[in-house]
């Protein structure tokens, strides 16, 4: 009788396994497959600083950025639109996980270059966040006849670790522990080395429009200037990303806007700005 019961039991189990809906079987299998979590941000920049995004291998982004003057400079100055500074940038994805970038800024006539590499990718099952390393070097080439400007004195460095997580299709948050080093600083009270912690985020308003925010907190006492702060909108139309934003920074390299943001956001020292990103595929996947 016992063996009969055991057999009946086996029978019921096997019957129920077979009667499971075929699609249910496939969906069950698929639910154990881990997938990379992609598209945390629309652009490779949140707007001033780097986002966790990297483009696929062979992709060249041309980025044209403008920052206008301060909104509170009044109607005579057309609320800042009379002044503008420009950064022209190129970013090339050498590998899926490695991007090299170059740029030229009109403010202080700065040339910048950076290396950005993905160390870890968020997965649906597994890693809860993505990690990207970014090292940036810039050369300040403004003529300063009053100073003995050697090449060394013109160099500035920034190293960042970007930690980001996409919590849902609509919300991504990013932390940016950063180290800034200036070989030469403006005054004795400014430190050569500055640590900062950035916080960035994206809230998707629709499939193609999202709201972004970026803030860098600087560690240190009696620092001159202000912490960089801004909000923006990303609009994506296929091959282009348009980023429109309001920030208290007028510089576009991390060695500029992290330590030397001069505007006080809450006094209205706000710059309207935009980045236009156009992607070109130089190398196809097949």
């Amino acid at each position, binding site marked *: 009788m016992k*063996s*009969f019961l055991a*057999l*009946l039991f*086996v*029978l019921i189990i*096997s*019957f129920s396994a*077979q009667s499971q*809906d*075929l*699609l249910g*079987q*496939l*969906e069950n*299998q*698929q639910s154990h*497959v881990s*997938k990379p979590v*992609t*598209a945390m941000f629309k652009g490779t920049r949140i707007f001033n600083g780097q986002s966790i995004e990297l*483009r*696929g*291998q*062979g*992709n060249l982004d041309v980025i044209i950025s403008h920052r206008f003057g301060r909104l509170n400079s009044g109607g005579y100055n057309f609320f800042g639109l009379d002044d503008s500074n420009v950064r022209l940038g190129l970013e090339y994805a050498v590998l*899926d996980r490695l991007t090299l970038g170059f740029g030229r800024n009109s403010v202080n006539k700065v040339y910048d270059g950076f290396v950005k590499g993905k160390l870890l990718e968020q997965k649906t099952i597994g890693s809860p966040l993505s990690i990207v390393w970014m090292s940036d070097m810039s050369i300040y080439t403004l003529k300063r006849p009053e100073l003995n400007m050697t090449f060394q004195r013109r160099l500035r460095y920034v190293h960042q670790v970007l930690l980001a997580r996409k919590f*849902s*299709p609509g919300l991504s948050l990013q932390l940016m522990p950063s180290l800034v080093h200036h070989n030469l600083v403006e005054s004795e009270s400014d430190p050569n080395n500055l640590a900062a912690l950035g916080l960035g985020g994206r809230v998707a308003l629709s*499939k*193609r429009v999202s709201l972004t925010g970026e803030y860098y907190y600087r560690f240190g006492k009696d620092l001159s200037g202000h912490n960089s702060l801004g909000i923006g909108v990303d609009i*994506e*139309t*296929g*091959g282009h990303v348009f980023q429109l934003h309001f920030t208290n920074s007028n510089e576009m390299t991390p060695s500029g806007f992290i330590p030397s943001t001069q505007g006080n956001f809450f006094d209205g020292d706000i710059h309207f700005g935009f980045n236009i990103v156009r*992607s070109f*595929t130089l190398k*196809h*996947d*097949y």
Partner: protein
Amino acid sequence: MKRLLFLLIFLFHLMQALGQQMNSQSGYVKFFSEALVEDITAENKNAKAVFDAQSGEVAFLVPISDFEFRKSLMKEHFNENYMESEKYPNAVFKGRIEGVDLEKGQGTALAKGTFTIHGVSKEVEIPGTYSMKEDVLILESIFWIVLEEYEIEIPRLVFQNIAEKVEVTIKFELK
């Protein structure tokens, strides 16, 4: 008692035979969209299928994020903007294939059932062919999908880039 046991064992074996399922873990799905500015092709080699030859019941599952494009940015836009693959990770078909005769070895068949893409379900009939090579059953079909029917929106700005209907090619080798 013994007879009952015997009967049960017999039933058990019968059911094993009845429930004989054929599987594929690496089915091939390609779509092709011909448009003014740019033709778009994407391939997926991770589609899954299970087919019950006895009853004709069948299920297909296509993971949307496994479609590979010529341009990496297209893949991102496909997933984020068109298919919303985080919300709707798979396209699935559930139904029955009529006309498969394993002994005949090859011929045409008709799949009838529910196709769910982008979270939208539709009753469809898809014609195709089958052929038997040794132990492997090959199912092939080419059919069209009208994007609008599955509420896949194309913004006017990129209208010229993407056709309103795409040609889908599938090939599954089931064992």
